[in-house]
């Protein structure tokens, strides 16, 4: 009888547990499919909350936009990371659709192998990735279309770019909703849009990442440095490193700007990219660029043969050899952070970091009618350096040793606006024996409205190696920015042309949070030890020279036997060299010592400190308990 009740009780328990399990699974399945957008975003930059810009862009869609997401479930099964990311992309798209109020439609497809859906994914040029060599392809991409049959795609969603997901999607929607692309003209002495003549046979002339980024937002049209006419249908002209810009070209820019065209200009007292380019004639050409005539008319100037050295934003470089690296600050390479940017201006207002190499100094000319708004500037205490000091094999240690803090604000990039007069008061430049340029608009001597120009005194900031790393993902270039250089350029273009919604969106994702304490210890230690190291190195060199002098003198004298004094001198010199080397090694070791000590302290604090305290507490409590028990026993 009793065993039967137990049996039935067991059955009841099992049924109850099974029902509980069903309820548990059901709740989670339902929640997973319905409540995806309810969340609290605790991140500092609200990474997972849609920004104002996205809200505005989605609210302004006129013509309907359709977004088609292609995702192979197999990819999610084999690599769960992608399943999670897919869920996030889908959530976000649903949120977009609800914000766009019916103007944005979402469709989801499973491109199973050899299906029509897969064919359509391929037709959209989405990236197929084989799960195993030669096996079936999986997809995780997106295609967007609008009513005029424009197409925008994201070929493959990379989880590494999750931080930029909102930007990528919003930009895609924006481009579809605003199909008329703005036109940017480019005049560049650097192969920024891809090299016209590949230097290595078979090598594709890849454009710089910054140009890719510009092309995603605008239509880019290239002009040669001898162009005499800038078409008036351009919205903006971007000039990069104008070192051999013809008179005609300068005149064309002058007139374009006076007529209300916008300009973004990159000059450089020392373009390191240019200096590194192999020269066909073998003779190194000039690596500086400037537009003195135009700048004067606009009320600015670039300091001649000067670059900025800034100890406080200096980047780390390896000043040793590959085998024995010696990392130290190089003051001519700067990594600008928030304090070096004009936060009140939308262009740099939200950027986190901009990297520059040997940037120049911009100044307003006295009595200029235009206003000069600095956008990027060096730290207080930065110095102005002669360009020759860094042009040929700069010595970072020597630069640090000779560092003298300046007391001026050195401006790297500035916005110039206001009324301006032409730089060519005598009309278009005349060249002997050449027919006049056709289709040239009549000369104007003064700006019709305020001019709008942004000037940046560094061209190296456009170079990939200073701000971006790219890797090849099945033939597709995947780009990981480490600084916001590209965003700065696109922001500047966008701002100059008057579109602002995308600005706040860009670059929200870059979130490098370095150990600032370690960096400052490193800086201080370097200051302290570098001069000592320098002195020791000088001494070493001197002694080595003395030794070799002694030895050659002996050989020249032809004496077979050295006098005891000579022998002693050589011995002394040798001993000196050995001890100096030892000292030098000591100094180099000291450089890291403070940081190593910090690491050891932190390790100890985090691994042992609290456990030891807890153990002591346990022992004390245990002892108290025993003592109490004994006392109780004694009194009893």
């Amino acid at each position, binding site marked *: 009888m009793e065993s039967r*009740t*137990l049996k039935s*009780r*067991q059955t009841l*328990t099992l049924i*109850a*547990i099974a029902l*509980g*399990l069903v309820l*548990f*699974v059901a*709740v*989670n*399945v339902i*929640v*997973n499919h319905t*409540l*995806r957008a*309810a*969340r*609290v*975003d*605790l*991140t*500092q*930059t609200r*990474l*997972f909350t849609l920004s104002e810009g996205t809200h505005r862009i989605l609210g302004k869609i006129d013509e309907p936009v359709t977004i088609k997401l292609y995702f192979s*479930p*197999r990819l*999610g*099964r*084999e*690599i*769960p990371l992608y*399943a*999670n990311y897919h869920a996030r992309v889908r959530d976000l798209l649903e949120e977009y659709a609800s914000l766009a109020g019916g103007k944005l439609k979402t469709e989801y497809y499973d491109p199973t192998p050899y299906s029509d859906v897969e064919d359509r994914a391929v037709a959209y040029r989405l990236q197929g990735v084989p799960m195993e060599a030669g096996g079936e392809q999986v997809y995780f991409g997106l295609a967007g279309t609008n009513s005029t049959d424009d197409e925008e795609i994201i070929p493959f969603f990379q989880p590494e770019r999750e931080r930029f997901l909102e930007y990528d999607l919003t930009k895609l929607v924006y481009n579809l909703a605003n199909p008329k692309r703005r036109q940017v003209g480019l005049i560049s002495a650097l192969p920024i849009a891809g090299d016209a003549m590949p230097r290595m046979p078979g090598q594709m002339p890849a454009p710089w990442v910054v140009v890719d980024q510009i092309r995603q937002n605008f239509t880019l049209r290239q002009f040669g440095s001898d162009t005499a006419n800038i078409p008036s249908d351009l919205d903006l002209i971007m000039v990069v490193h104008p070192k051999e810009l013809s008179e005609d070209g300068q005149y064309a820019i002058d007139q374009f700007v006076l007529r209300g065209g916008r300009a973004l200009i990159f000059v450089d007292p020392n373009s390191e990219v240019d200096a590194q380019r192999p020269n066909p004639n073998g003779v190194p050409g000039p690596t500086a660029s400037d537009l003195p005539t135009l700048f004067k008319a606009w009320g600015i100037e670039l300091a001649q043969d000067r670059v900025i050295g800034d100890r406080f934003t200096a980047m780390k470089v390896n000043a040793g050899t590959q085998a024995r690296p010696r990392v130290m600050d190089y003051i001519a390479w700067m990594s600008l952070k928030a304090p070096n940017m004009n936060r009140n201006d939308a262009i740099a207002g939200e950027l986190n970091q901009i990297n520059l190499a040997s940037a120049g100094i911009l100044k307003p000319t006295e009595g200029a009618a235009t206003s000069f708004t600095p956008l990027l500037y060096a730290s207080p205490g930065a110095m102005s350096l002669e360009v020759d000091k860094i042009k040929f094999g700069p010595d970072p240690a020597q630069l640090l040793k000779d560092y003298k803090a300046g007391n001026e604000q050195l401006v790297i990039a500035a916005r110039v606006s206001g009324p301006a007069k032409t730089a060519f008061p005598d009309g278009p430049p005349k060249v002997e024996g050449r027919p006049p340029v056709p289709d040239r608009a009549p000369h104007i001597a003064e700006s019709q409205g305020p001019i709008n120009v942004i000037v940046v005194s560094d061209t190296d900031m456009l170079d990939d190696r200073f701000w971006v790393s790219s890797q090849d993902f099945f033939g597709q270039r995947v780009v990981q920015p480490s600084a916001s250089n590209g965003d700065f350029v696109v922001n500047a273009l966008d701002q100059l042309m008057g579109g602002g919604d995308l600005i706040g969106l860009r670059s929200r994702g870059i*979130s490098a*949070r*370095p*150990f*600032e*304490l*370690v960096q400052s210890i490193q800086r201080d230690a370097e200051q302290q030890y570098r001069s000592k190291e320098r002195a020791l190195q000088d001494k070493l060199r001197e002694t080595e020279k003395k030794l070799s002098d002694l030895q050659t003198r002996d050989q020249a004298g032809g004496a077979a036997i050295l006098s005891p004094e000579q022998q002693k001198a050589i011995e002394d010199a040798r001993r000196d060299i050995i001890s100096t080397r030892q000292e030098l090694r000591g100094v180099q070791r000291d450089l890291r010592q403070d940081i190593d000590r910090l*690491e050891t302290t*932190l*390790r100890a*604090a*985090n*691994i*042992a*400190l*609290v*456990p030891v305290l*807890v*153990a002591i*507490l*346990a022992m004390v409590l*245990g002892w108290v*308990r025993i003592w109490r028990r004994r006392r109780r026993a004694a009194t009893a």
Partner: protein
Amino acid sequence: MLNTFTIFRRELTSYFITPLAYIFIVIFLATAGTLTFFVGNFFTRGQADLEPFFGFHPWLYLILIPAITMRLWAEERKTGTVELLLTLPISMTQAVLGKFLAAWVFAGIALALTFPMWITVNVLGSPDNGTVLAAYGGSWLMAGAFLAIGAAISPLTKNQVIAFVLTTAICFIFTVSGSGLVLNFFSGWAPTLVVDTIAAFSFITNFNAIARGVIDLHNLIYFASIIAFFLFVNVQLVDLKKAG
């Protein structure tokens, strides 16, 4: 409510009377620190966040939490105190809840004692403290889920070793259920809905989602429902064993 609190207090005090609590805390802290610095390369990484620290939490809990829960009911059964406990005028649910809450608060204390990590990262740089807070919250929730599973297994056996091994095994399944290893096993025959559901039932997936700095309602409901379900199982099993 009051009864639950009484049980809770009795249980929590009992942790700190025996050396168990101290040993657990010492091992938890030392292991977490060691893994963060030596395996996670916290310092050489040079980034002011606690990713290398929180990344090890699921695995630490996998080994350490069953050690707390294995004695939760098994010991009471062995020493016979379970009969005593159940003759008291309290309901089964109150007893189960009190015991669970005590263990959860205890785990919370151990977790809170990792505060030097948080100080360290703030001294070294400027971390996103919102993300750190979310990750701590997520970690504590996950600890609750581990504890609930362990608590449910505990009354099944008088043998603590068996309780430990069983708990670890089941927790392991929950920990890795989002990984390709497990999903591949199901993907051949089970419908997509089932596979997706299994993938969504992973501790690591849900914890990582919270540790990014976003507290998503469905991640919260996931952990809450795990805790609720296993506590329900716990009540059922204790009830059954009492009858038996």
